[in-house]
Protein backbone atom coordinates (compact mmCIF):
# COMPACT_ATOMS: atom_id res chain seq x y z
CA UNK A 1 0.00 0.00 0.00
CA UNK A 2 1.38 3.34 -1.00
CA UNK A 3 1.36 6.06 1.59
CA UNK A 4 0.97 9.65 0.48
CA UNK A 5 2.13 12.97 1.83
CA UNK A 6 0.01 15.97 1.06
CA UNK A 7 1.20 18.36 -1.67
CA UNK A 8 0.88 21.40 0.53
CA UNK A 9 3.38 20.03 3.10
CA UNK A 10 5.88 19.15 0.34
CA UNK A 11 5.49 22.62 -1.10
CA UNK A 12 6.34 24.15 2.25
CA UNK A 13 9.46 22.02 2.53
CA UNK A 14 10.59 22.91 -0.98
CA UNK A 15 10.11 26.62 -0.28
CA UNK A 16 12.15 26.16 2.88
CA UNK A 17 14.91 24.51 0.87
CA UNK A 18 14.91 27.37 -1.62
CA UNK A 19 15.39 29.81 1.25
CA UNK A 20 18.11 27.65 2.72
CA UNK A 21 20.08 27.93 -0.54
CA UNK A 22 20.18 31.71 -0.12
CA UNK A 23 22.25 31.44 3.05
CA UNK A 24 24.59 28.84 1.61
CA UNK A 25 28.31 29.79 1.69
CA UNK A 26 30.65 29.53 -1.28
CA UNK A 27 31.99 26.23 -2.46
CA UNK A 28 35.70 25.55 -2.56
CA UNK A 29 35.61 25.71 -6.36
CA UNK A 30 34.01 29.15 -6.28
CA UNK A 31 36.63 30.45 -3.87
CA UNK A 32 39.47 29.03 -5.94
CA UNK A 33 38.07 30.69 -9.07
CA UNK A 34 37.90 34.03 -7.26
CA UNK A 35 41.47 33.63 -6.02
CA UNK A 36 42.68 32.75 -9.52
CA UNK A 37 40.87 35.77 -10.99
CA UNK A 38 42.37 38.05 -8.34
CA UNK A 39 45.83 36.66 -9.08
CA UNK A 40 45.33 37.27 -12.79
CA UNK A 41 44.26 40.87 -12.08
CA UNK A 42 47.35 41.55 -9.98
CA UNK A 43 49.77 42.20 -12.88
CA UNK A 44 47.36 44.87 -14.07
CA UNK A 45 47.51 46.62 -10.72
CA UNK A 46 51.30 46.35 -10.61
CA UNK A 47 51.45 47.64 -14.19
CA UNK A 48 49.45 50.68 -13.21
CA UNK A 49 52.02 51.67 -10.60
CA UNK A 50 54.86 51.00 -12.99
CA UNK A 51 53.22 53.36 -15.48
CA UNK A 52 52.91 56.00 -12.76
CA UNK A 53 56.61 55.75 -12.01
CA UNK A 54 57.59 55.97 -15.68
CA UNK A 55 55.34 58.99 -16.24
CA UNK A 56 56.79 60.65 -13.17
CA UNK A 57 60.26 60.29 -14.65
CA UNK A 58 59.00 61.69 -17.95
CA UNK A 59 57.76 64.85 -16.22
CA UNK A 60 61.23 65.39 -14.77
CA UNK A 61 62.87 64.85 -18.14
CA UNK A 62 60.46 67.30 -19.76
CA UNK A 63 61.38 69.97 -17.19
CA UNK A 64 65.07 69.37 -17.80
CA UNK A 65 64.57 69.56 -21.57
CA UNK A 66 62.68 72.82 -21.19
CA UNK A 67 65.40 74.35 -19.02
CA UNK A 68 68.15 73.25 -21.41
CA UNK A 69 66.28 74.77 -24.35
CA UNK A 70 65.77 78.04 -22.48
CA UNK A 71 69.44 78.06 -21.46
CA UNK A 72 70.54 77.78 -25.08
CA UNK A 73 68.14 80.51 -26.14
CA UNK A 74 69.55 82.81 -23.45
CA UNK A 75 73.10 82.11 -24.65
CA UNK A 76 72.14 83.02 -28.21
CA UNK A 77 70.39 86.21 -27.07
CA UNK A 78 73.49 87.12 -25.02
CA UNK A 79 75.72 86.50 -28.04
CA UNK A 80 73.47 88.70 -30.14
CA UNK A 81 73.63 91.47 -27.54
CA UNK A 82 77.43 91.19 -27.25
CA UNK A 83 79.79 93.41 -29.18
CA UNK A 84 83.15 92.60 -30.71
CA UNK A 85 84.49 89.75 -32.81
CA UNK A 86 82.15 86.78 -33.03
CA UNK A 87 79.22 88.54 -31.38
CA UNK A 88 76.28 90.58 -32.54
CA UNK A 89 73.40 89.88 -34.91
CA UNK A 90 75.61 89.14 -37.92
CA UNK A 91 77.34 86.26 -36.12
CA UNK A 92 74.22 84.41 -35.11
CA UNK A 93 74.08 81.45 -37.46
CA UNK A 94 73.57 77.69 -37.38
CA UNK A 95 77.29 76.91 -37.79
CA UNK A 96 78.17 78.85 -34.63
CA UNK A 97 75.95 76.52 -32.58
CA UNK A 98 76.80 73.24 -34.27
CA UNK A 99 78.03 71.63 -31.05
CA UNK A 100 75.76 72.51 -28.20
CA UNK A 101 75.02 69.08 -26.78
CA UNK A 102 74.86 69.17 -22.98
CA UNK A 103 77.49 67.23 -21.07
CA UNK A 104 77.83 65.63 -17.64
CA UNK A 105 74.55 64.92 -15.89
CA UNK A 106 72.65 66.13 -18.95
CA UNK A 107 74.62 64.05 -21.47
CA UNK A 108 71.59 61.90 -22.28
CA UNK A 109 69.99 64.93 -23.93
CA UNK A 110 70.73 66.06 -27.47
CA UNK A 111 70.45 69.75 -28.30
CA UNK A 112 70.45 71.31 -31.73
CA UNK A 113 70.07 74.87 -32.97
CA UNK A 114 68.75 75.88 -36.37
CA UNK A 115 68.82 79.50 -37.46
CA UNK A 116 67.01 80.70 -40.56
CA UNK A 117 67.16 84.23 -41.91
CA UNK A 118 63.74 85.59 -42.77
CA UNK A 119 63.27 88.35 -45.35
CA UNK A 120 67.06 88.62 -45.90
CA UNK A 121 68.25 92.11 -46.72
CA UNK A 122 64.79 93.50 -46.23
CA UNK A 123 63.70 96.20 -43.84
CA UNK A 124 62.32 93.66 -41.42
CA UNK A 125 65.00 91.04 -41.72
CA UNK A 126 65.01 88.71 -38.77
CA UNK A 127 66.46 85.39 -37.75
CA UNK A 128 64.31 82.58 -36.56
CA UNK A 129 66.00 80.50 -33.88
CA UNK A 130 64.78 76.98 -33.26
CA UNK A 131 66.27 75.15 -30.28
CA UNK A 132 65.41 71.47 -30.10
CA UNK A 133 66.19 69.30 -27.09
CA UNK A 134 65.69 65.56 -27.53
CA UNK A 135 65.72 62.59 -25.24
CA UNK A 136 64.94 59.00 -26.12
CA UNK A 137 62.26 58.67 -23.43
CA UNK A 138 60.18 61.78 -24.16
CA UNK A 139 58.99 63.85 -27.11
CA UNK A 140 61.37 66.62 -28.19
CA UNK A 141 61.05 70.08 -26.70
CA UNK A 142 61.19 72.79 -29.37
CA UNK A 143 61.68 76.45 -28.46
CA UNK A 144 61.36 79.06 -31.21
CA UNK A 145 62.32 82.72 -31.11
CA UNK A 146 62.99 85.68 -33.40
CA UNK A 147 65.80 88.21 -33.25
CA UNK A 148 66.01 91.46 -35.21
CA UNK A 149 69.01 93.51 -36.23
CA UNK A 150 68.55 96.42 -33.91
CA UNK A 151 69.22 97.26 -30.29
CA UNK A 152 67.25 95.35 -27.74
CA UNK A 153 65.85 91.87 -28.10
Amino acid at each position, binding site marked *: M*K*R*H*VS*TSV*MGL*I*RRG*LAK*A*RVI*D*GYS*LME*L*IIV*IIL*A*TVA*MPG*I*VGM*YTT*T*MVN*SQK*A*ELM*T*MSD*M*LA*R*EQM*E*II*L*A*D*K*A*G*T*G*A*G*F*GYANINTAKYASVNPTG*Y*FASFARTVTITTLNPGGLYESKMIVVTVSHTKIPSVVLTGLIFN*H*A*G*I
Partner: protein
Amino acid sequence: MRDYSIKDGLNLAATLRRDDRGHTLIEMLVVMIMTSLLAVMFGQILVSSIQIYSNHNQRKTGNIDARRACDMLMNEVRDWRSWDGAPTATKVKFKRIAKLLSGVYYYDEFRVTFEFSGGQLTYARENDGKSTNKYILLQDGAGSSQFSTVTLGTTKRVTIQLVMTVNGRPMQLRTTVFPRLQGG
Protein backbone atom coordinates in the same frame (compact mmCIF):
# COMPACT_ATOMS: atom_id res chain seq x y z
CA MET B 1 -3.13 17.35 -7.38
CA ARG B 2 0.22 15.51 -7.41
CA ASP B 3 1.00 12.74 -4.96
CA TYR B 4 4.41 12.16 -3.36
CA SER B 5 5.66 8.84 -2.06
CA ILE B 6 7.72 8.10 1.04
CA LYS B 7 10.70 7.64 -1.31
CA ASP B 8 10.32 11.25 -2.41
CA GLY B 9 10.38 12.23 1.21
CA LEU B 10 13.61 10.27 1.84
CA ASN B 11 15.27 11.89 -1.19
CA LEU B 12 14.27 15.26 0.14
CA ALA B 13 15.75 14.43 3.52
CA ALA B 14 19.01 13.40 1.81
CA THR B 15 19.10 16.70 -0.07
CA LEU B 16 18.60 18.56 3.18
CA ARG B 17 21.50 16.69 4.77
CA ARG B 18 23.76 17.48 1.79
CA ASP B 19 22.98 21.22 1.95
CA ASP B 20 23.71 21.40 5.63
CA ARG B 21 27.00 19.59 5.56
CA GLY B 22 29.29 22.77 5.34
CA HIS B 23 33.01 22.48 4.46
CA THR B 24 35.57 19.94 5.55
CA LEU B 25 38.65 20.92 7.55
CA ILE B 26 40.89 20.35 4.52
CA GLU B 27 38.74 22.65 2.37
CA MET B 28 38.85 25.32 5.03
CA LEU B 29 42.63 25.00 5.42
CA VAL B 30 43.21 25.24 1.67
CA VAL B 31 41.03 28.32 1.39
CA MET B 32 42.62 29.93 4.44
CA ILE B 33 46.13 29.33 3.14
CA MET B 34 45.28 30.66 -0.31
CA THR B 35 43.48 33.66 1.13
CA SER B 36 46.44 34.38 3.43
CA LEU B 37 48.86 34.23 0.52
CA LEU B 38 46.64 36.56 -1.45
CA ALA B 39 46.35 38.94 1.51
CA VAL B 40 50.14 39.05 1.86
CA MET B 41 50.57 39.75 -1.85
CA PHE B 42 47.95 42.51 -1.84
CA GLY B 43 49.49 43.90 1.34
CA GLN B 44 52.87 44.13 -0.33
CA ILE B 45 51.32 45.85 -3.31
CA LEU B 46 49.63 48.32 -0.98
CA VAL B 47 52.89 49.08 0.86
CA SER B 48 54.74 49.45 -2.45
CA SER B 49 52.08 51.73 -3.84
CA ILE B 50 52.26 53.97 -0.78
CA GLN B 51 56.05 54.14 -1.12
CA ILE B 52 55.80 54.87 -4.84
CA TYR B 53 53.26 57.61 -4.21
CA SER B 54 55.40 59.12 -1.46
CA ASN B 55 58.59 59.03 -3.55
CA HIS B 56 56.79 60.41 -6.57
CA ASN B 57 55.34 63.21 -4.48
CA GLN B 58 58.70 64.16 -3.00
CA ARG B 59 60.41 64.19 -6.38
CA LYS B 60 57.58 66.19 -7.91
CA THR B 61 57.80 68.73 -5.10
CA GLY B 62 61.59 68.88 -5.43
CA ASN B 63 61.30 69.37 -9.16
CA ILE B 64 58.72 72.14 -8.81
CA ASP B 65 60.82 73.92 -6.17
CA ALA B 66 63.95 73.66 -8.31
CA ARG B 67 62.15 74.99 -11.34
CA ARG B 68 60.69 77.88 -9.36
CA ALA B 69 64.19 78.73 -8.07
CA CYS B 70 65.55 78.76 -11.62
CA ASP B 71 62.65 80.90 -12.84
CA MET B 72 63.14 83.39 -10.02
CA LEU B 73 66.83 83.69 -10.79
CA MET B 74 66.07 84.25 -14.47
CA ASN B 75 63.48 86.91 -13.72
CA GLU B 76 65.71 88.77 -11.28
CA VAL B 77 68.97 88.61 -13.23
CA ARG B 78 67.24 89.88 -16.37
CA ASP B 79 66.97 93.25 -14.62
CA TRP B 80 70.52 93.16 -13.22
CA ARG B 81 72.30 96.52 -13.18
CA SER B 82 75.51 95.98 -11.24
CA TRP B 83 77.13 93.55 -8.84
CA ASP B 84 77.05 94.26 -5.14
CA GLY B 85 80.26 92.53 -4.17
CA ALA B 86 81.98 89.95 -6.33
CA PRO B 87 79.79 86.99 -7.23
CA THR B 88 80.92 83.62 -5.91
CA ALA B 89 79.90 80.02 -6.52
CA THR B 90 77.56 80.18 -3.53
CA LYS B 91 76.35 83.76 -3.56
CA VAL B 92 75.31 86.36 -6.09
CA LYS B 93 74.23 89.79 -4.95
CA PHE B 94 73.32 92.56 -7.33
CA LYS B 95 71.38 95.74 -7.78
CA ARG B 96 68.48 95.58 -10.10
CA ILE B 97 65.93 97.95 -11.48
CA ALA B 98 62.45 97.77 -10.14
CA LYS B 99 59.53 98.28 -12.44
CA LEU B 100 56.32 99.04 -10.65
CA LEU B 101 53.17 98.40 -12.62
CA SER B 102 51.14 101.41 -11.52
CA GLY B 103 51.11 102.75 -15.02
CA VAL B 104 54.55 104.28 -14.53
CA TYR B 105 57.97 102.73 -14.79
CA TYR B 106 60.59 104.07 -12.43
CA TYR B 107 63.82 102.87 -10.97
CA ASP B 108 64.55 101.98 -7.42
CA GLU B 109 67.54 100.60 -5.60
CA PHE B 110 66.71 96.98 -5.07
CA ARG B 111 69.38 94.58 -4.02
CA VAL B 112 68.78 90.95 -4.68
CA THR B 113 70.72 88.08 -3.15
CA PHE B 114 70.67 84.41 -4.04
CA GLU B 115 72.72 82.29 -1.69
CA PHE B 116 73.43 78.61 -1.15
CA SER B 117 74.11 77.85 2.49
CA GLY B 118 73.67 74.70 4.54
CA GLY B 119 72.00 72.88 1.68
CA GLN B 120 69.41 75.66 1.34
CA LEU B 121 68.93 78.21 -1.38
CA THR B 122 67.70 81.55 -0.08
CA TYR B 123 66.46 84.61 -1.89
CA ALA B 124 66.59 88.04 -0.27
CA ARG B 125 65.38 91.36 -1.55
CA GLU B 126 66.33 94.65 0.06
CA ASN B 127 64.70 97.95 -0.75
CA ASP B 128 67.42 100.58 -0.21
CA GLY B 129 68.17 99.17 3.18
CA LYS B 130 64.64 99.99 4.33
CA SER B 131 63.33 96.48 4.35
CA THR B 132 64.52 92.99 3.67
CA ASN B 133 62.46 90.05 2.63
CA LYS B 134 64.13 86.70 2.79
CA TYR B 135 62.69 83.48 1.48
CA ILE B 136 63.88 79.92 1.36
CA LEU B 137 63.58 78.68 -2.20
CA LEU B 138 65.01 75.23 -1.57
CA GLN B 139 64.69 73.77 1.87
CA ASP B 140 67.40 71.14 1.66
CA GLY B 141 69.24 68.79 -0.62
CA ALA B 142 70.92 71.51 -2.68
CA GLY B 143 74.36 70.69 -1.30
CA SER B 144 76.59 70.88 -4.36
CA SER B 145 74.63 73.53 -6.21
CA GLN B 146 76.46 76.54 -7.51
CA PHE B 147 76.32 79.76 -9.47
CA SER B 148 78.73 80.54 -12.23
CA THR B 149 79.17 83.85 -13.93
CA VAL B 150 80.75 84.06 -17.35
CA THR B 151 81.71 87.04 -19.43
CA LEU B 152 81.90 86.23 -23.10
CA GLY B 153 82.90 89.14 -25.26
CA THR B 154 81.25 92.02 -23.51
CA THR B 155 78.29 90.10 -22.21
CA LYS B 156 77.85 88.68 -18.76
CA ARG B 157 75.85 85.53 -18.20
CA VAL B 158 74.80 83.90 -14.97
CA THR B 159 74.27 80.16 -14.74
CA ILE B 160 72.62 78.34 -11.89
CA GLN B 161 73.21 74.64 -11.50
CA LEU B 162 71.03 72.94 -8.94
CA VAL B 163 72.42 69.65 -7.71
CA MET B 164 69.95 67.96 -5.42
CA THR B 165 69.41 64.57 -3.90
CA VAL B 166 65.78 63.54 -3.56
CA ASN B 167 64.98 60.11 -2.13
CA GLY B 168 68.59 59.11 -2.55
CA ARG B 169 68.46 59.81 -6.27
CA PRO B 170 70.15 62.75 -7.97
CA MET B 171 68.13 65.56 -9.50
CA GLN B 172 69.73 68.39 -11.40
CA LEU B 173 68.50 71.46 -13.19
CA ARG B 174 70.53 74.10 -14.93
CA THR B 175 69.69 77.32 -16.63
CA THR B 176 71.43 80.44 -17.85
CA VAL B 177 70.29 84.01 -18.08
CA PHE B 178 71.89 87.22 -19.23
CA PRO B 179 70.97 90.71 -18.05
CA ARG B 180 68.99 92.46 -20.73
CA LEU B 181 70.47 95.91 -20.15
CA GLN B 182 73.78 94.85 -21.66
CA GLY B 183 74.88 95.26 -25.24
CA GLY B 184 72.83 96.19 -28.24
